[in-house]
């Protein structure tokens, strides 16, 4: 039977939004290829009632596996077992770090075809075809699977969350054995927040800073500009500068950070890598300031300014202040 198995990531009693999107998408696709969408949840004492809520997004069945949370390899083992037990033609993952790791490990284990960064999937003749943007999103490839199981790893926010189901899903225990490699990595600290807790999701205007700000102190320019706009503005950051310790994790946009869609997104010194783009491309107006005229961000900004931040931002801050005052 052409069932689709979806990994659902949960943390502190809630499912990840990208996982909910993946379950919704799998339910739709399974209907088109004559199968069902089943989800798999792995953790320590996963609440059954939490697992059952995936039925609202279209999952007919949820497999609950007992194992260490937050690492990929236990899930490779669990999903390989579920697939070996039969009935699955595809495994689907929403965007995010763990999905990439699990999907890739599963592809190796099963000798299965895997496609990552998938932005759309369609059913054709009872099979799924994945669409993946390549070459800096300048082209979209279509990929079909020639293996008994096909693995689809979505790009962040690729799959829309749809509450289509009206009943709880059936919950079943899945017993499986951990592979030796899965027992040789241990989570010591999970989900550590670094830096101040700031809110960027509620802001209408985001001034986002990247490497081009030069150093941690460079964020002062972004903060001054945000302050000039007023209380509906906040400062966001790219992963590179958060990992470098320039700005708090809570302000991070993109792949392992937040997804935002403000009225105005002003990117200062951000080159525009895909991992950043997926977190902010829903913004209503995108303005980019970068000294590199070839920066990818100019390809998806509404207004691009090629120039030196250190010259432009202070003057822009003064001008916005004057405009507000006047």
């Amino acid at each position, binding site marked *: 039977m052409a069932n689709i198995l979806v990994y659902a990531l949960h943390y502190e009693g809630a499912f990840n939004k990208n996982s909910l999107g993946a379950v919704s998408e799998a339910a739709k696709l399974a209907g088109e290829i004559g199968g069902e969408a089943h989800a798999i949840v792995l953790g320590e004492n996963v609440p059954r009632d939490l697992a059952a809520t995936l039925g609202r997004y279209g999952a007919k069945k949820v497999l609950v596996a007992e194992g260490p949370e*937050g*690492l*990929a*390899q236990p899930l490779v083992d669990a999903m390989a077992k579920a697939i070996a037990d039969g009935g699955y033609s595809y495994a689907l993952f929403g965007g*995010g*770090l*763990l999905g*990439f*790791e*699990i999907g*890739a*490990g599963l*592809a*190796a284990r099963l000798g299965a*075809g*895997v496609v*990552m*960064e998938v932005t759309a999937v369609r059913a054709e003749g009872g099979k799924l075809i994945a669409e993946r943007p*390549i*070459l800096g999103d300048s*082209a*979209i*490839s*279509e*990929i*079909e*699977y*020639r*293996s008994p199981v096909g693995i689809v790893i979505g790009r962040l926010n690729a799959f829309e969350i749809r509450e289509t189901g009206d009943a709880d899903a059936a919950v079943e225990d899945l017993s499986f054995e951990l592979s030796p*490699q*899965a027992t*040789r*990595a241990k989570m010591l*600290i*999970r*989900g*550590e*927040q*670094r830096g101040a807790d700031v809110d960027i999701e509620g802001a209408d205007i985001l001034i986002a800073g990247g490497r081009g700000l030069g150093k941690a102190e460079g964020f002062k320019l972004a903060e001054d500009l945000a302050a000039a706009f007023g209380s509906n503005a906040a400062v966001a950051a790219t992963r590179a500068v*958060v*990992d470098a310790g320039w700005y708090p994790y809570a302000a991070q946009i993109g792949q*392992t950070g937040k997804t935002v869609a403000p*009225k*105005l997104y002003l990117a200062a010194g951000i080159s525009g890598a895909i991992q950043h783009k997926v977190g902010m491309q829903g913004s209503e*107006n995108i303005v980019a300031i970068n000294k590199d005229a070839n920066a990818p961000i*100019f390809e*998806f900004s*509404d*207004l*691009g*300014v*090629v*120039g*030196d931040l250190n*010259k*432009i931002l202070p*003057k822009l801050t003064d*001008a*916005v202040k004057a*405009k507000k005052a006047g």
Partner: protein
Amino acid sequence: MKICVLVKEVPDAAVEKRLDPSTGRMDRSGEKNLNPYDTHAIEAAMQIREGGAAPVEEIVAVTMGPESAVRALHKAVSLGADRSIHLSDPVLAGSDVAATGYALAKTLETESPDLVLLGQQSDDGECYTIGAVVADHLGMPSLTQVIKMDVADGGLRCERQAEYGYDTVQVEMPAVISVGDAINEPRYPSLKAIMGAKKKPLQSMAAADAGIDTGKVGGDNSAAHWTAAKAPPAKAAGEIIEDEDTGETVEKILAWLDERKLI
């Protein structure tokens, strides 16, 4: 310990990348540089060696690719690897991620490394995934996108950013670790190292030398089959201002924002 670093030749960022319309695959004819993410993996290996927490006997750069990929190995050696291995065979052409990972894992098996390092992504294609594929074939624990790594308690203490914040994970060796670009600042090779790179041992291997099952590699045996490519939906190009007179530039930005009622 022995560290193997997986490296890859990618198109130079300055060169326009394109698809071969006849195959729908990437045209790799213009490739000519070491994947910039891989330089962080080599630097991470060097820092373990220089840090002294564990003795490193050897750092071996490993790549799979056509003849030209030798240049990526020379670069890797100039950055600190002691020797290199070049897996090259026409039967490997067109391998997808899963097949490439399998072939690399078979090649690594011939070296029995204690640690396999790689960059978190390649500049041109397979995002984040090759490390996890290699690890499963080798039966090694694995972690990707690591931004801090220390030898501790006989293993590696790794930190990375995941969905809900920063995770700290203790990984036993042998292990496969892919590193993010925040982990270090790669050094520049000295002129002497660049000149000496071609004299360091470079071993060429064919698929059979590594015990690769040719039925599992190459375009025809890859399970993910690229059928077609199309153009993305057209998006209207944005307006561009070149900053010559900053006062004027700021006025233009302000007018643009004002028009859209954003101030």
